[in-house]
């Protein structure tokens, strides 16, 4: 509602003429009861007064800020800060302008008004541009452009293009400047259909052509701008077009035409109350007279400019006016008068920090003193002139210098970095070399150690193997010698006992029979032991052969059928002495038992080799026995003991009438 109300006032406002605007606004503010509308009106008033009465403009904006803050009206605060900043900018007080633009920006961000933010960024870019801080200007313009495009705010976008154009213009990059002005012009034409902007853009383009020395082109654009401005009754734009035409004519040395244009522009500015433009224009008029060497007329115009500048307290225009007046007086040989103004120009230039103006002032002062015959002062001022000129050149050079310096520093640093890097690389290479040597040495040592250990181990292994073989051989020899010796003796005992039985066949020969039997058994056992420790018999194949011979020897006389089944046992499998002895003896016991007690007609002996195991199963089809009840004699105990000795699984399963199964599963390593 409030905005709507304010909008209504604006409508009323624009419906009245420019001349009455100021008074009307004053009246409007006094009559308005709504604070928000009042606040907005203050900012409008401030904008209106920017060029004609900056002081009042600032006061109005400050009133608007005060009121807006009191009623907590963010929009009002923003608008008035923006107006205040614009006023300062109009007065070339860019730091103040930037300060207030920032305040406006903060509010725009707080209220998340993107469009407002874009507008402030554009304005900040303009301020920095005017401060000749082009990087900052570009930074803010970039931000503004992004936001403007985001919100499709073409007006702000076009404004930003204009500002870009001005930035490039200040940098004398006319081509880029032209490009941006054309972009702005296009936007103003479509979709904005904004005659004001179009005029502005056209005159900007004309201005560039003018600066480029293309007077005819410049004239063309200026006249285009003029046509539109007149058609749309845009008085400020008509004024600006006249001013531009004046400049172009001056360039073409068509001084009268130029003066004519300036006069018309001046009339319009005064009508509009645009004191600032009027003041600036008077200096242009003065310059024409100066060119025409009508220094008195020039002086008159310069003085008029100074009056106007003083009226609006514009120090920048004042400073230029002082300088111009001084130089005109100098030309008129009014040296004292000239010195007075030139000194003012000097001080103003210093206050403004405008080195170019200061340089001009010193040059003029020096020339004046020279004209006066005061060569000493002429010289000192000349020196000052040179000093400022140099410092200016230095300042200009400084950027270049600084850049060069920076580049040099950078290069120096890069060189140092390169050197360091090379040094590091060398160190790394050296370190690598050292490490390689260390690793090499270490590896060599380890290798030597390992080889040494392996050799020692091998030596020990071979020595041990050799020793073992020797021990085995000796053991074998001892066993054989013993067996050979004892075998003969046992044979003798065996024969004698049998002879004794034979000599006395009717007597009780039980004891003699036992001697015969035991001696026979002992021979058998000894034979088995000798066989088992003989390294020749270390394979399963040899064990199998021995088993077969034994089976044949025992079973064939009894007419018992037997069959050996080998279910894929590796015949070359190595069995140690203990394994082959126990395996054979378990087999032997089983066969003996089968032969003596089973009454079987068939025996099946099966061997298999599951993973890391060797199994033996002896099955008979004999009478069997109750293995749960009957405890077998020494035979079974011996077999169990031998199985234990082998870490083997051993079982004997039998039932009366269904034969016997003996199973052995021994681990093999």
């Amino acid at each position, binding site marked *: 509602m409030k905005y709507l109300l304010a909008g209504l006032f604006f409508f009323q406002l624009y419906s009245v003429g420019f001349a009455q605007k100021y008074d009307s606004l004053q009246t409007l503010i006094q009559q308005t009861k709504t604070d928000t509308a009042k606040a907005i009106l203050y900012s409008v008033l401030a904008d209106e007064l920017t060029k004609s009465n900056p002081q009042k403009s600032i006061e109005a904006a400050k009133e608007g800020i005060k009121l807006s803050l009191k009623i907590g009206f963010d929009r009002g605060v923003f608008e008035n800060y923006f107006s205040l900043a614009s006023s300062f900018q109009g007065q070339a007080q860019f730091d103040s302008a930037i300060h207030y633009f920032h305040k406006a920006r903060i509010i725009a961000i707080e209220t998340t008004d993107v469009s407002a933010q874009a507008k402030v960024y554009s304005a900040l870019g303009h301020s920095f541009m005017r401060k000749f801080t082009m990087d900052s200007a570009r930074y803010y313009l970039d931000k503004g452009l992004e936001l403007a495009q985001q919100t499709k705010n073409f007006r702000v976008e076009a404004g930003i293009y204009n500002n870009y154009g001005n930035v490039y213009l200040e940098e004398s990059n006319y081509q880029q400047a032209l490009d941006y002005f054309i972009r702005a012009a296009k936007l103003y034409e479509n979709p904005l259909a904004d005659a004001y902007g179009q005029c502005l853009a056209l005159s900007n383009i004309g201005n560039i052509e003018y600066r480029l020395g293309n007077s005819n082109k410049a004239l063309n654009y200026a006249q285009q701008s003029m046509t539109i401005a007149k058609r749309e009754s845009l008085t400020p734009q008509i004024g600006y077009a006249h001013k531009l035409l004046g400049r172009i004519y001056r360039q073409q040395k068509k001084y009268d035409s130029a003066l004519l244009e300036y006069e018309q522009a001046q009339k319009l500015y005064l009508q509009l109350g645009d004191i600032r433009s009027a003041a600036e224009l008077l200096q242009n008029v003065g310059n024409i007279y100066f060119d025409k060497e009508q220094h008195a007329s020039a002086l008159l115009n310069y003085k008029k400019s100074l009056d106007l500048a003083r009226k609006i307290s514009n120090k920048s225009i004042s400073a230029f006016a002082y300088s111009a007046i001084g130089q005109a007086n100098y030309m008129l040989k009014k040296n004292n008068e000239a010195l007075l103004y030139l000194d003012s120009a000097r001080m103003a230039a210093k206050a403004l920090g405008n080195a170019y103006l200061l340089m001009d002032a010193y040059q003029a002062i020096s020339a004046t003193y020279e004209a006066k015959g005061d060569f000493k002062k002429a010289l000192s001022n000349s020196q000052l002139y040179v000093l400022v000129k140099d410092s200016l050149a230095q300042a200009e050079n400084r950027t270049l210098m600084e850049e060069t310096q920076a580049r040099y520093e950078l290069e120096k640093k890069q060189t140092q970095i390169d050197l360091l890097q090379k040094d590091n690389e060398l160190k790394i290479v050296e370190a690598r070399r050292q490490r390689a040597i260390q690793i090499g040495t270490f590896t060599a040592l380890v290798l030597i150690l390992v080889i040494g250990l392996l050799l020692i181990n091998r030596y020990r292994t071979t020595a041990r193997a050799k020793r073992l073989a020797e021990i085995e051989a000796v053991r074998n020899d001892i066993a054989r010698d013993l067996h050979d010796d004892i075998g003969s*003796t046992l044979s003798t005992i*065996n024969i004698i006992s049998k002879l004794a039985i034979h000599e006395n066949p009717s007597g009780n020969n039980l004891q003699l029979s036992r001697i015969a039997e035991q001696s026979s058994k002992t021979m058998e056992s000894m*034979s088995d032991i000798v066989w088992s420790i003989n390294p020749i018999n270390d394979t399963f194949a040899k064990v199998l052969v021995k088993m*077969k011979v034994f089976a044949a020897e025992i079973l064939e006389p009894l007419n018992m059928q037997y069959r050996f089944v080998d279910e894929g046992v590796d015949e070359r499998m190595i069995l140690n002495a203990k394994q082959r002895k126990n395996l054979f003896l378990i087999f032997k016991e089983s066969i003996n038992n089968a032969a003596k007690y089973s009454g079987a007609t068939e025996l099946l002996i099966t061997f298999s080799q599951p993973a890391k195991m060797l199994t033996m199963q002896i099955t008979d089809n004999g009478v069997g026995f109750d293995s749960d009840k009957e405890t077998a004699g020494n035979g079974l105990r011996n077999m169990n003991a031998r199985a234990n000795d082998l870490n083997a699984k051993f079982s004997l399963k039998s039932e009366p009438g269904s034969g016997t199964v003996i199973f052995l599963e021994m681990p093999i390593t």
Partner: protein
Amino acid sequence: MFFQMAITVLLYEDNTMLRESISSMIRLDPRFLVSAAFENVLHAENQVAEINPDIILMDIDMPGRNGIEAVTRIRATGSTTPILMLTVFDDTQHVFDALRAGASGYLLKKHLSSKLFEAIDEVLTGGAPMSPTIAFMVIAALQKPVANPYQLTPRENEILASLAKGNSYKLIAAEFFVTVDTVRAHIKKIYEKLHVHSQTEAVSKAIKERLV
């Protein structure tokens, strides 16, 4: 008649007790007559020639000169008298060497009291038993092409191979669909082929060649 029919036995055995026991045992069987029993073989060739026994029983390991050398010397004289070696072991190179030197068979001492007469009968009828170990040794020896003028027949090779695996004569007979006597005959042939060298003049040379 009875005594004329007796089979004369010559015995070499260094162990006195055993020598006397064997002699006593043989005397028990009226079919046999111990012509002489010596404790060494130093004069074996002459003694054999002089006594001319029907069979010689000879211990392998004897001091001074062993049974193998004695066999070689006896055979060198041209004697074909069967020689039965007496040994504690049947798995030694000695037994095999003795067989190659001309021995007719061998008997394990542990079987003396039970199998002596049987063994003598077998040797005299030419059917000396052969253990798997010896069969294995025969195979190994005959596989060497050097000095092997009498190649075994394929059947002899098959029987040897089966024998070396520990199969009994009975099993071998069953395996090749022949009788046990046929198997025995094959074994006898194999023994004879082993003896070939002992019957040539270049006995020692042949032995040397074979031992290479």
